[in-house]
């Protein structure tokens, strides 16, 4: 029998052994090729010209993708070889030289790679269209994507996988040459820890792991806390400390804490175990040494992926709300310029609602409202120009708000300012209008946004009674830049397109000449700002989502592969248990518990990591936290659940077969 015939025959007979590895390869090629195809698709390239950083973002992402895929394929090949170590040992036992065995395995891998690259490219080509459609939907661009085969993408994918193939063959050759025959026969047992007594060192390290994670979490909540960050001189150092302690803590958690906790549970039972202990607790303890590294890696990758996806989704999700901060109304007319817009809307039969504001400003020292220790930080920035709006105008949006004379409300206190410098109501502050000083009692701090960002400059707005407003206006010696604002909301959003056109056509009428720099300012509509946000963020969210998906699929697959291998290893135990009278259901109860641990714990800790990471700095990315975070996490959990279900199904099959 020639070598090639031996290879093909053994591959045909061992389809079951190969299919997992083969699937992993195909999947990697698909992911890689569909991404690069997308990157070089002319219609996508055309559409992305609008956002300048597109190609840079794409190529950066593709490198990250290559790294993920490389690690994944290397891992899968290692697992595959471990399972076949006996076969390799047998070949050597019957007298094949190591060189011949290496050639045999190399030939096998070459065949697998060629097939996988072929199939993967077809799948990748087809799926790239789907991804392109998703991308266009995100960018709100109506465009039919033409599928075109990109030679550049083809070349790149082939190069990547050729390099991978060489690396894998080198790795295998090294492995076969290095190891002895004896160890090949026992390779499947290598990762297992011989169960040892529990030492004090382990208990201490277990505790340290938990404490490090807790410390990291606590520090992350303090990251942007001006008051306490004095502990770490620079923000960068602080971040490094947080990252380091959570990462090390996660590793120690899996390496020692899990065993510590489980050992405590086990010791309490003093030999009288329940079926879940037998099926879940003891095997998990038994394998923790071998599994801790991969579980740590999976946890950290999950944390990273969910964190990044949440942040980019937060900015994408907030593109509407952050546009609302620029233009709280659909359309805004300042200083009564361009009121023709209103007439034209009426003319076109478009229904709308309109609010009118009078605007003035005062000098205000907000630091008095900042709580105790923080005051010293704010001394420099103490007095600033603050916009004032009379109560009756504010009542247009909040009819129930009442104020006594001498009372005031601060509103629009949001975002970074609100996170970093929290202020409290219920105090008096002094405002300067011209030469006069007025003392106002701050009744409430609110978040309502009413004025164009150009008017308020992102700083809070002061609401005072109408009499006070008049008084301020009288005392002021100079006119503020903006004196009035008309806010217009469409009743029916379907009229947006028409209204948008009218608003744009009146750009000249609406333009206001600014005194400070002699340039004219034209207020943008809500829709304009939102569209601009989406074009610049749509690609980011797409790329991060794609990478997140790659992370998810690879970590999920690794967990699934690992569980398949574990199930095979434990087949014997299941056989014993079923013989001495455990039913399939009894065993499955234990399996569920074990899967809940293997999938649930890395996921839960990963999500917790990302929660704290996102929580510490989300306000730099957007204005909505809860919804995008919950949506991202839910989707991730659901997709992760698919892998858990697959793995449970596999266990079920093994348990059924084992009697």
């Amino acid at each position: 029998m020639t070598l090639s015939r031996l290879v093909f025959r053994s591959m045909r007979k061992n389809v079951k052994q190969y299919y997992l590895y083969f699937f992993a390869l195909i999947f990697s090629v698909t992911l890689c090729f569909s991404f690069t195809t997308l990157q070089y698709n002319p219609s996508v390239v055309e559409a992305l010209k609008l956002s300048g950083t597109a190609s840079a973002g794409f190529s950066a992402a593709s490198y990250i993708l290559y790294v993920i895929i490389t690690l994944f394929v290397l891992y899968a090949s290692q697992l595959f070889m471990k399972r076949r170590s006996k076969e390799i040992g047998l070949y050597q036992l019957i007298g094949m030289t190591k060189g011949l065995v290496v050639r045999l395995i190399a030939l096998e891998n070459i065949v697998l790679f060629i097939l996988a690259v072929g199939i993967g490219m077809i799948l990748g080509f087809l799926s790239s269209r789907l991804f392109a459609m998703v991308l266009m939907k995100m960018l709100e661009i109506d465009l039919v994507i033409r599928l075109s085969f990109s030679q550049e993408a083809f070349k790149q994918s082939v190069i990547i996988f050729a390099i991978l193939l060489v690396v894998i063959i080198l790795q295998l050759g090294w492995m076969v040459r290095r190891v002895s025959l004896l160890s090949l026969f026992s390779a499947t047992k290598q990762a297992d820890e011989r169960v040892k007594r529990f030492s004090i060192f382990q208990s201490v390290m277990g505790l340290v792991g938990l404490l490090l994670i807790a410390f990291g979490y606590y520090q992350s909540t303090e990251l942007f806390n001006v008051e306490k960050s004095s502990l770490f001189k620079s923000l960068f150092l602080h971040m490094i400390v947080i990252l380091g302690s959570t990462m090390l803590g996660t590793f120690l958690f899996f390496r020692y804490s899990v065993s510590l906790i489980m050992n405590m549970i086990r010791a309490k039972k003093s030999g009288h175990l329940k079926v879940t202990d037998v099926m879940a607790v003891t095997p998990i303890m038994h394998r923790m040494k071998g599994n801790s590294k991969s579980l740590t890696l999976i946890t950290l990758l999950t944390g990273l992926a969910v964190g990044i996806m949440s942040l980019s989704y937060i900015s994408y999700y907030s593109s509407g709300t952050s546009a609302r901060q620029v233009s709280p109304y659909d359309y805004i007319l300042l200083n009564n310029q361009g009121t023709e817009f209103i007439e034209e809307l009426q003319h076109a039969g478009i229904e709308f609602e309109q609010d009118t504001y009078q605007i003035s400003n005062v000098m205000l020292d907000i630091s008095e409202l900042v709580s105790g220790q923080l005051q010293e930080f704010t001394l420099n920035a103490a007095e600033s120009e603050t916009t004032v709006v009379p109560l009756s105008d504010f009542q247009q949006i909040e009819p129930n708000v009442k104020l006594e004379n001498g009372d005031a409300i601060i509103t629009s206190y949001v975002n970074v300012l609100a996170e970093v410098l929290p202020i409290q109501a219920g105090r008096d502050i002094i405002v300067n209008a011209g030469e006069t000083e007025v003392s106002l009692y701050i009744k409430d701090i609110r978040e309502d946004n009413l004025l164009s960002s150009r008017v308020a400059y992102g700083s809070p707005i002061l609401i005072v009674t109408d009499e006070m407003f008049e008084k301020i206006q009288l005392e002021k010696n100079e006119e503020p830049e903006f004196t009035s604002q008309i806010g217009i909301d469409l009743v029916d959003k379907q009229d947006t397109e028409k209204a948008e056109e009218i608003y744009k056509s009146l750009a000249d009428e609406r333009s206001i000449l600014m005194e400070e720099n002699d340039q004219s300012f034209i207020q943008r509509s809500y829709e304009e700002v939102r569209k601009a946000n989406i074009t610049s963020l749509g690609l980011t969210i797409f790329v991060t989502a794609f990478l997140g998906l790659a992370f998810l699929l690879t970590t999920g697959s690794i967990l699934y592969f690992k569980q398949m291998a574990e199930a095979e290893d434990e087949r014997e135990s299941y056989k014993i248990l079923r013989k001495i009278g455990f039913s399939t259901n009894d065993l499955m109860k234990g399996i569920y518990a074990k899967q809940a641990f293997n999938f649930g714990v890395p996921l839960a800790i990963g999500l917790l990591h990302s929660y704290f990471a996102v929580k510490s700095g989300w306000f730099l990315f957007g204005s909505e936290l809860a919804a995008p975070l919950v949506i991202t996490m839910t989707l991730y959990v659901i997709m992760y659940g698919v892998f858990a279900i697959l793995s449970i199904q596999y266990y079920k099959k093994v348990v059924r077969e084992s009697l």
Partner: protein
Amino acid sequence: MSVLVGRKIRKVYGKKSTAQEVLKGIDIEVGKGEFVGIMGPSGSGKTTLLNVLCSIDHPTEGVIEINGQSLRGMKEKELAKFRREQLGFIFQDYNLLDTLTVKENILLPFSISKQPRAVAESRLKELVALLGISDILNKYPNEISGGQKQRTSAARALITNPALVFADEPTGALDSKSATALLTNLEKINQQKSATIMMVTHDSVAASFCSRVLFLKDGAIYTELYKGDKTRQQFFQQIMSTQSVLGGDGYDA
């Protein structure tokens, strides 16, 4: 009174064209407190008979009753419960879980039944004292010898006070000294606790510890020997001569 009654047990493997009849209508009866050995050359159906009798495998035809309960028509779950509560198992390759200590392995059958801890504990104490493994309770299987493993396995089989203990080549992997120690222990338990034991073996020495030995040939019972008042040595000689008549050369592969 009979603990185990088997009538006309047939077992056929394979489809019609390739059917192979492994058990050809075996009748068997085991009384309470008996220590029955099953011998026979390879392929005679020893292990199949044991598997069928202990409900791990289903007979093609025939009736099996253990403690008056028929195995026919029982669902997987009921069978599992039945095995757990009524039967004990000792296997050639010990079948201990590597991840559990000796004590945990012995108490394994109680992990789903609601046995009070104190009862289980006292039963455990009694058994490990009898089998001489009290000082290794907290060790893991990889830390103890083959003989100790098999005694652990025996303790697990006996912990539930089963109606019947099945032993499949229990001495197969042991050296002769450990084998004798184990068999002496089983004999002791059989006599003192009047536990009913059924053992498949191809070792004549092991069989000589039994009170009765059945010989199987080509799926049918060839003959049976009773120990009666004979000494173990005499019984051993009788077994050896029966085996040579049966064909084979005393030992089979």
